[in-house]
């Protein structure tokens, strides 16, 4: 038996286990660029239209959000509009897939079951990388073909597909290394995810300030590969080189460590337990605090960077109609800076909702892992148990939105010398997102109460909401479809008038969904595997 024996069988198993999940990812990632391009072709049919819109996109604030616009063409515009989103999502898909088939398998002990059969030492890692590699190859090919079919130039289409696939493979390699560090799959994903978020911020800062910073960021490289704008193929070498380093590190660590062990040693806890650990809420705090802290830091940093970048929008000599139109569509119609900030906080709300969903689903994880059984055999009732986790989903989201708002206020306020005033304004802009995130919390609770095996659909609801809000207008969907998402009803602050009615509606819907879910949970069998 050599160290790779069994790789093929493991890879086949991974495809079998993930067939639905991966298919959805591949199709979603492949369709987005094609749809965007098709849409731009009809929106800006002439060279003059293109010139008009492109002139305004060199604006620093938009550059911070999506990167610089390199090429004056439909292709260039498409790559700019969808590029960063695509890169982040493909990175996320890759790192989650690799961790799921390496560290998660190890943590749950399933790998041991497999390891006892004929499986080489490097087989699980190789299989995970192989699967993720094939998926990224499929994504890259479909993107290139789709863009080509829309009528865009071949070289650029290939370059954009390549850039997406390379970002995916790089984060697969990064996740392969991070999965060797910790014993917990959750921590491994968190580390790789933090790297991904960090590269986005680094690029945002670099693209608006010292350019070399964006050259430190893989999401930056993907843009610097310049699809449709004089492709620089050599940038691909950066991905290959750095990816190879991470892969080598991962393999070296696998060789060195025991199955189940991490490189970061587990410390022993204290011989006494804290007297405060005496309620379901205290337990929930222990289970949620790491996640909450990580998200709070991440959103605060993003808020600060974007707040700082917002001041740049005023640099524009003559604010022109085209930019105003774009930003109005994204964020409301009272002044460019406010529109930009409103757009940023709209996005922040949706990102924060990812935490909300994650926190709600902890409830379900506690159940499916079987841990809840011992807890519910004490006088703690199910509703109290559920409430302890809901507290973190609901108030935790408030906390991280507040952090983003305050940090954004600091970042922007420092530029315009009005820290106090801006903190207040942007804190408001962040917190108005809260009721919309609560609707997702309510939806998640309803799933857990009524259809626990399908709780993961809470993620689907979030992704669908984001796609509808972000791309609905672009794809010309009717307003009522877009209105079905909670985020479509959030007042666009700062700038627009604050209206309380939609907030109350959203809160009421969230409460109703939550109540239905809790009633279901109260009645049904626990645990449902």
């Amino acid at each position, binding site marked *: 038996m050599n160290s790779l024996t069994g790789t093929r069988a493991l890879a086949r198993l991974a495809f079998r286990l993930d067939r639905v999940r991966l298919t959805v990812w591949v199709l979603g990632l492949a369709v987005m660029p094609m749809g965007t391009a098709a849409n731009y072709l009809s929106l800006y049919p002439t060279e003059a239209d293109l010139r008009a819109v492109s002139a305004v996109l060199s604006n620093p604030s938009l550059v911070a959000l999506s990167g610089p616009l390199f090429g004056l063409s439909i292709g260039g515009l498409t790559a700019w509009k969808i590029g960063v989103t695509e890169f982040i999502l493909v990175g996320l898909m890759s790192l989650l897939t690799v961790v799921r088939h390496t560290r998660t398998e190890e*943590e749950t002990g399933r790998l041991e079951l497999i390891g006892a059969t004929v499986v080489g030492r490097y087989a699980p890692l190789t299989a995970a990388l192989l699967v993720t590699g094939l998926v990224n190859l499929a994504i890259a090919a479909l993107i290139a073909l789709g863009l080509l079919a829309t009528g865009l130039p071949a070289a650029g289409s290939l370059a954009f597909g390549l850039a997406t696939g390379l970002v995916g493979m790089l984060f697969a390699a990064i996740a392969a290394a991070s999965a060797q560090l910790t014993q917990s799959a959750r921590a491994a994903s968190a580390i790789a995810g933090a790297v991904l978020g960090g590269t986005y911020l680094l690029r945002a800062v670099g693209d608006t300030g010292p350019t070399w910073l964006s050259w430190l960021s893989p999401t930056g490289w993907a843009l610097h590969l310049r699809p449709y704008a004089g492709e620089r193929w050599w940038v691909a070498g950066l991905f290959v080189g750095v990816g190879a380093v991470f892969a080598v590190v991962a393999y070296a660590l696998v060789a060195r460590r025991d199955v189940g062990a991490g490189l970061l040693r*587990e410390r022993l*806890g*204290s011989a006494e337990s804290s007297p405060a650990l005496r309620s379901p809420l205290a337990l929930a705090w222990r289970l949620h605090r790491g996640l909450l802290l990580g998200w709070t830091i991440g959103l605060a940093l993003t808020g600060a960077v974007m707040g700082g970048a917002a001041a740049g929008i005023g640099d524009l000599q003559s604010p022109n109609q085209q930019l105003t139109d774009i930003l109005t569509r994204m964020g409301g119609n009272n002044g460019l800076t406010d529109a930009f900030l409103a757009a940023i906080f709209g996005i922040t709300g949706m990102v924060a909702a990812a935490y909300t969903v994650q926190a709600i689903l902890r409830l379900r994880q506690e159940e499916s892992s079987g841990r809840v059984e*011992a807890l519910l055999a004490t*006088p703690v*009732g199910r509703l109290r148990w559920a409430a302890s986790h809901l507290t973190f989903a609901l108030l935790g989201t408030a906390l991280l939105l507040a952090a983003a708002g305050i940090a954004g206020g600091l970042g922007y306020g420092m530029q315009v010398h009005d820290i106090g005033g801006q903190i207040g304004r942007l804190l408001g802009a962040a917190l108005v997102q809260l009721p919309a995130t609560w609707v997702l919390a309510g939806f998640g609770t309803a799933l857990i109460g009524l259809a626990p095996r399908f709780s993961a659909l809470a993620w689907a609801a979030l992704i669908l909401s984001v796609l509808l809000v972000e791309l609905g207008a672009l794809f010309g969907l009717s307003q009522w479809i877009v209105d079905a998402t909670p985020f479509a009803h959030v007042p666009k602050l700062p700038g627009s008038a604050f209206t309380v009615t939609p907030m109350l509606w959203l809160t009421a819907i969230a409460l109703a969904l939550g109540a239905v879910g809790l009633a279901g949970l109260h009645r049904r069998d626990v645990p449902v595997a």
Partner: protein
Amino acid sequence: MTEAIHVDALVKTFGPTRALDGLDLSVRTGEVHGFLGPNGAGKSTTIRILLGLLRADSGSARLLGGDPRRDAAELHRRLAYVPGDVTLWPNLSGIEVIDLLGRLRGGLNAKRRDELLERFDLDPRKKGRAYSKGNRQKVALVAALASDVDLLILDEPTSGLDPLMEEVFRQVIREEQQRDGRTVLLSSHILAEVEALCDRITIIRDGRAVETGTLADMRHLTRTSIEVGLAGPVTGLDTLPGVHDVQTHNGTVRFDVDTSALDAVLRHLTTVGILSLTSQPPTLEELFLRHYDRTQADEKPQTRVTR
């Protein structure tokens, strides 16, 4: 109150699976009650219904005089539970889990906890994910045993313990037995453990109780194998009630006899004259195998298990 647990005609289905099919179970206050049955017989399901986690389709269950679901909070103050599959929170240390569960139950005896930690030789400072299967089980056991409760519900609590720890467990349960009014429901596959600890046992199969009573009662219902050397030929042995599988070989007769018919059979043999006699009482394994094995249990009259 003389019954800590009373279950009557309990039915529970999971989709097409009929996990419990009219189960009866009665556990007297103050006894250690063994709960046995092959894999998938419905032991854990019964226990989960008793804890109010699952809802029965029909039938009734009473626990410490209350309704498992309606009175869950009060009842759970008076009981402690060790699940069959112990999973711990990966980032909580053993002592934190023990203290948390104890405090939620309304307090635990710290002295008793430390004594148990020592006896079970458990390092309580490790994080949940760092414990081996047996050690996870010890964490749950210490958490349950350190609380002062009326009822202990233990679902295969020793399936991961080494023989040394198994012995500690037996001692601890025996001590519990000494304390008045403490009831233990012990689901187990370890027959020696059941024999050593249980006052009464219930065997279930396919969601139904097939046997209940003391071990002595059950032994009585089984057969003893006899090998006897006789002074002369014997007649009419195989027509005596309760005698099975008679084989004669050079003056040595081998047969099985229902324990209840032993007396009459031996009287019959002494009329011929006994030269030598070996008898083998039914082993516990035989007793259980008879109930566990579907094909044998369904056969009537029962034939002896040969190994």
